[in-house]
């Protein structure tokens, strides 16, 4: 198991290096630079930055400087916000994005697993049909539309109750988390529900479920002890890519709900061509996603003994 984890981490490191390199060179391929804009940095800051990042040096040298700084965990200073370290921006705003993302993921995973199991249990009957229609809607309607509809619904509800049940936007307490997290997780939830449904249907047809019935177990006992874990396996494998979807989806949802998360800064930085912020957050997000995928692989190993016992690379 340890060898297995180390191997995954090594692959992860290579992936991050690849992301960093690709970002660096594509940034250099983009026309224009942050100093051209009127709103850009003061001559003083500009001077310092030029020196520090060797912006007057050849690209390969800049690349090496950039890699060296990154290895030390230093993503540099923002080009557009004087004296603001990229590290500080991440430290301050990533937790907000993380809370939103984790909440969205939890909602998506529990909702998807329960929804899929319910649909499979009533296969081809009305709960299943309703669920599948909802799934198609949730997957095909873009999240900004759902976000707007959700905000409208909140406004209506607050008006009707004549006291604010839920805040329409902003950040602060628990009450600010639910709606954006649900909006953010909805597509993923639908996708996972569909996955769970088909894997549950396959499990229900399996020989070992017939064996379980022949043991005299009740439907609920069979579901809990024999169906759930096996049906969840494909869902857990899909959680990795799912986290990527939720992270990128977060950019939009944070903007719409005025949530001060890292995603909003990322979008802003792109608009302002703030090199260091773009590169720093990209690499950070890349590293974060890679780590998540490794964690999910480990979780998968815990659920499926076949992976745990065979994949340990002994």
């Amino acid at each position: 198991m340890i060898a297995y984890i180390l191997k995954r981490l090594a692959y992860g490191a290579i992936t991050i290096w690849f992301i960093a390199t690709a970002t660096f060179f594509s940034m250099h391929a983009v026309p224009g630079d942050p100093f051209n804009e009127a709103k850009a940095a003061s001559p003083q800051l500009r001077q310092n930055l030029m020196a520090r990042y060797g912006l007057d040096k050849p690209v390969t040298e800049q690349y090496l400087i950039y890699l060296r700084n990154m290895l030390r965990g230093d993503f540099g200073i923002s080009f557009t916000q004087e004296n603001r370290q990229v590290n500080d921006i991440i430290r301050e705003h990533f937790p907000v994005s993380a809370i939103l993302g984790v909440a969205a993921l939890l909602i998506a995973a529990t909702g998807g697993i329960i929804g899929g199991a319910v649909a499979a249990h009533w296969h081809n009957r009305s709960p299943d049909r309703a669920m599948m229609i909802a799934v198609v809607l949730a997957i095909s309607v873009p999240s900004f539309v759902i976000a707007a509809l959700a905000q409208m619904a909140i406004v209506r509800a607050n008006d009707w109750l004549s006291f604010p049940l839920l805040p329409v936007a902003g950040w602060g307490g628990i009450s600010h988390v639910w709606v954006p997290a649900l909006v953010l997780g909805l597509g993923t939830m639908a996708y996972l529900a569909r996955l769970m449904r088909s894997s549950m249907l396959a499990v229900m047809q399996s020989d070992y479920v017939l064996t379980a019935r022949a043991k005299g177990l009740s439907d609920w006992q069979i579901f809990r002890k024999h169906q759930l874990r096996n049906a969840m396996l494909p869902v857990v494998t899909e959680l990795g890519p799912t986290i990527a979807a939720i992270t990128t989806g977060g950019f939009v949802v944070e903007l719409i709900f005025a949530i001060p998360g890292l995603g909003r800064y990322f979008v802003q930085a792109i608009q302002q061509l703030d090199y260091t912020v773009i590169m720093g957050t990209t690499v950070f997000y890349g590293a974060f996603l890679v780590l998540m995928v490794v964690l999910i692989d480990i979780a998968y190993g815990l659920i499926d003994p076949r992976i745990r016992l065979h994949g340990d690379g002994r």
Partner: protein
Amino acid sequence: MKAPESLLSVRDLNISLGGQHLVRSVDLDIEAGQCLALVGESGSGKSLTALSLMRLLPRSAKISQQYILFEGQSLAAYSEAQWRQLRARRIAMIFQNPMTAMNPTMRVGQQIAEVLCLHAGVSRREANRQAVALLERLGIVNAAQKARQYPFEMSGGMLQRAVIAMAIACKPALLIADEPTTALDATVQAEVLVLLRELCNEQNMGLLLITHDLGVVRRMAQKVAVMYAGKLVETGAISRVFNTPAHPYTQALKQAMPSLTEQRDSLMAIPGTPPDLSKPIAGCAFAARCPQAMNVCARQQPADYLTAPEQHAKCWLWDPARTKAS
């Protein structure tokens, strides 16, 4: 001669599924400590018959019978909860493929212990201990360690023993084995069969053995029932049915098998195909493939004729009227 006490007795069992009348008017009698073999080609309805004896058929299946008596009790009106009490405790089943019959993400010992916890009401620790003891009794060395393994870590033969351990954990009165050795290689097959016979003798357990293999039937069973297209065409004592098969289908089976000691799956070697069961069949289902078919065969169903002591066949050849005429 006094008939042995009947453990399970079913009359006129019918099963329909998806508009097909798949099991047609089947009568079964199984005695304690004895083995009844159910043979017939693929798709003849053997598994459906077996599953119906534990009410494990798909929900959409329609099932009816004149009566079903087990240990002197009528099961016809049993509720699902009552059936659950019966399953594994009084009637247990072994399925064909041990590789898929076990939950892949649960330890083998735990899967056996689960039955004991459920029906014997013992603690989990005691159930685990008994599970290991069962595996040991079925000839698994190092049973305590094997009990902690997952199904994918075991060989087919060992898994089938584990499946049998699971089935006999509560000492059922009737064991149904649906092709218990088809997925195993020849030497393991023989071992498993010996094991099953010992269990019948030791625990006075009735065994319904479903198989393609006439060699297995000869070694294991006292009685045999031959199924064709959902109907039992011939039933009787082993020696009768093997030496003097009365029904042309049984005769063809015997001929298709050059040597009964040779273990081969040869039930397919009869020319023609079984009839379509989605339409009602007027006469004998085998008529179209029967070398001795007469006019009456395709028109009218034959009755169940006594062809010799302890041997019955559903075939017009044994109609007393015809016998007298010729």
